[in-house]
């Protein structure tokens, strides 16, 4: 190839804060699987093949986004770059961004005690961030096998971090049948977060999610060491924006897995809960990021296997009047 200077992938962002926010939501696995496509980068985290979290960073989140795939011989769709990186390290690197501002403020405070004592809490009109010269964050993947590079440039300081890339080992998603949905509910993500927060004190191991056609519509219940708790929507049907259900659906999940998604519940604006006939639960979060753009986070959970002897039903779901 003649133009070997062109890297495989290069993306520039002036504000990596949304990247950080989104990626933090799937920070439950050591390594994430990265796939670079022409529309954006896909980060997938996986926990024992029973929980999966996907953050898709749309190319709209970047101010410049180029993918130069080598043209394949037979004209088929080219292979997108696939690799794994340690997510926590990536998040740490992203946090470096903005630290120049903090350091500059601290320095200014030393020189100008008046400002440091009285006005320190105010947003600084002359900070790099407010002036829009925030600097850039460049993600670079030169060629297959290269380190995944993050270059942060801010007011004269340039930080380059190279993350070792690992061979992909989890190319498959948890199978979720979009054409065989048992129910689909869209609601405010805050509400789901509140429901989960409500039952956390019970110290649950298993979370049972039940969706019914009639009241109470959607129930989250669990049993823990100090008692059992449940949250339902019997009086709150209007909290459910979309509610379509084919049949009664009830599945149990490991509570810790669901809790991993609570950061996503916190920052997202809406969530779509879907369950297929196999019992796989899909949580799709819509996150409003800076500048009116939207991003999506996708979680999938495999339920506990249900046995027909009814033993698994140790969660109290008695009715209370």
């Amino acid at each position: 190839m003649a133009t070997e200077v062109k890297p495989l992938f290069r993306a520039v962002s002036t504000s990596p804060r949304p990247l950080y926010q989104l990626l933090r939501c799937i920070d439950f696995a050591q390594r994430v699987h990265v796939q670079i496509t022409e529309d954006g980068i896909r980060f997938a985290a996986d926990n024992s093949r029973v929980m999966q979290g996907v953050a898709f960073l749309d190319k709209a989140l970047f101010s410049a986004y180029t993918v130069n795939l080598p043209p394949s011989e037979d004209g088929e769709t080219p292979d997108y770059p696939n690799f794994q990186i340690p997510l926590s390290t990536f998040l740490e690197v992203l946090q470096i961004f903005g630290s120049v501002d903090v350091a500059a403020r601290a320095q200014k405070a030393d020189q100008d005690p008046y400002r440091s004592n009285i006005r320190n809490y105010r947003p600084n009109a002359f900070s790099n961030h407010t002036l829009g010269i925030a600097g850039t964050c460049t993600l670079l993947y030169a060629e297959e096998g290269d380190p995944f590079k993050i270059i942060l440039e801010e007011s004269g300081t340039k930080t380059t971090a190279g993350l070792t890339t690992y061979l992909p080992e989890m190319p498959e998603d948890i199978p979720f049948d979009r054409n065989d949905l048992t129910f689909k509910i869209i609601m405010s993500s805050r509400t789901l977060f509140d429901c989960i927060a409500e039952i956390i004190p019970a110290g649950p191991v298993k979370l049972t999610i039940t969706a019914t056609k009639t009241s109470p519509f959607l129930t989250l219940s669990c049993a823990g060491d100090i008692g059992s708790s449940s949250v339902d929507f019997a009086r709150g049907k209007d909290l459910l924006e979309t509610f379509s259900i084919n049949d009664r659906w009830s599945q149990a999940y490991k509570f810790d897995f669901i809790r991993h998604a609570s950061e996503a519940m916190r920052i997202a604006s809406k969530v779509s809960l879907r369950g297929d006939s196999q019992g796989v639960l899909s949580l799709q979060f819509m996150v409003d990021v800076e500048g009116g753009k939207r991003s999506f986070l996708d979680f999938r959970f495999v339920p506990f296997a249900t046995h027909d002897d009814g033993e698994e039903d140790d969660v109290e779901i008695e009715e209370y009047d």
Partner: protein
Amino acid sequence: MAILTFTLSEEGVTAFRDALNCLSKFSEDVSIEARKDSFFLSTMNTSKSAYASFRFATNRFFGRYQYQATGQFQDKFYCSMYIRGLISLFRSRSGVESRGDVDKQTIIDRCDVAIEDGEGVKSRFIARIIFRNGLTATHRLPFEVSMPVHAKFNRQEALYHWSISSRTLKQLVDHFGPGTEYLEVNTDGDHVNFTCFSEKTISDDAVLKKPLHTSISVETDEFDDIDVEDKLQIVVSIKDIRAITQHAAITGNAIAARYSLPARPMQLSYASDAISCEFLIMTVGERGGNPAQRTKKVRKGAPSSNNHVPPHLEATSRRTSAAPSQTAAEIQRQQSEMPPPASSRQPPNPTPRLSAARASASRIGAFDFRPSQRPPPPTLRSDSLFVEDEAWEPVRDEDEDGDEDARLEWDHSADPVSGLVNRLMCPVANLETESLYFAHEPRR
């Protein structure tokens, strides 16, 4: 099926939580006792040296309260529960974390509680919390049916009492350091001294082997009323006092203390609109040389609209002319015979503030050394006061005074340097000087 059902408003949930938080500082379990017209939460600590109880006025505190007498619970229902489970149930939902937009959605509309028990029914405390946004949370907690243990307090025996605004008392208690264990209350002329100290030794290398003693001297004018034997030193656990004052300050009403002699229980009580609280804590201490002399002050001039002192206390406090040697029986007779006439109300002291300020100004910041007060060995703490039934018979203490002193063998010639006492003479208004004194506290 439910034995007891009641409804709490959002304020009710908050009040319930405050009470449970206070109880959790005494013990891990709480006893619930419910009758047709009363609802109690009580607990006793494991060493049986402190007892706390909250009584809720069923008609005012609860939106709805229904007691269904069934089976073994014909007369009353009682059970014991794990406090932490209850606290998490009634925890504060709003503002758990800073939410960007001030959507006050998850705020409780009401909380319905049902207690179910009986044959074939699981013993469950079921709380259904209905949120304003439409969510309904149902929590089921198990309980154990066990008879609550109540401590009894003999009011006739408690000759001494004082009452003070709970906020003032909390401000005083806030000044005592975290490492301290005991609080000593004694009177000295027209001052009441609150001394906080510890018997723990920090380390052998330290010059001061014990944490700083902190003493706050309060003018009797700060008290609503006071009638205590002069120089009587009564020592209680500061941990218990802290728990009590913290809760009392929420209600903001006057807190009343009644006690007699060291090694006898002290009662602390206060009431708010719908809750009345009573605490019994064990005391140790030392009696002064002059039992006949009393520190006494009655302030009844101010209209006591928000002063929920029980009538019994009012009657006693107006007994200004009673001789100190009166026996309890005489006092009682006098109370029953003589309802205090309105004319006996004293006019308010015209210059209490002025004199207090002057007195404190002359003494503020004065350090002085005095012998350390050693509380008697822990074996003297009597557990036997707390009994399960009404059968407990109080013993007159006057007969035993000689004995007790002999047994204690106080060493009054103790090395004066070993216990450095930082005595802070100030009324509450002058507390800003405290940081100076706390700077001396050894770091741990």
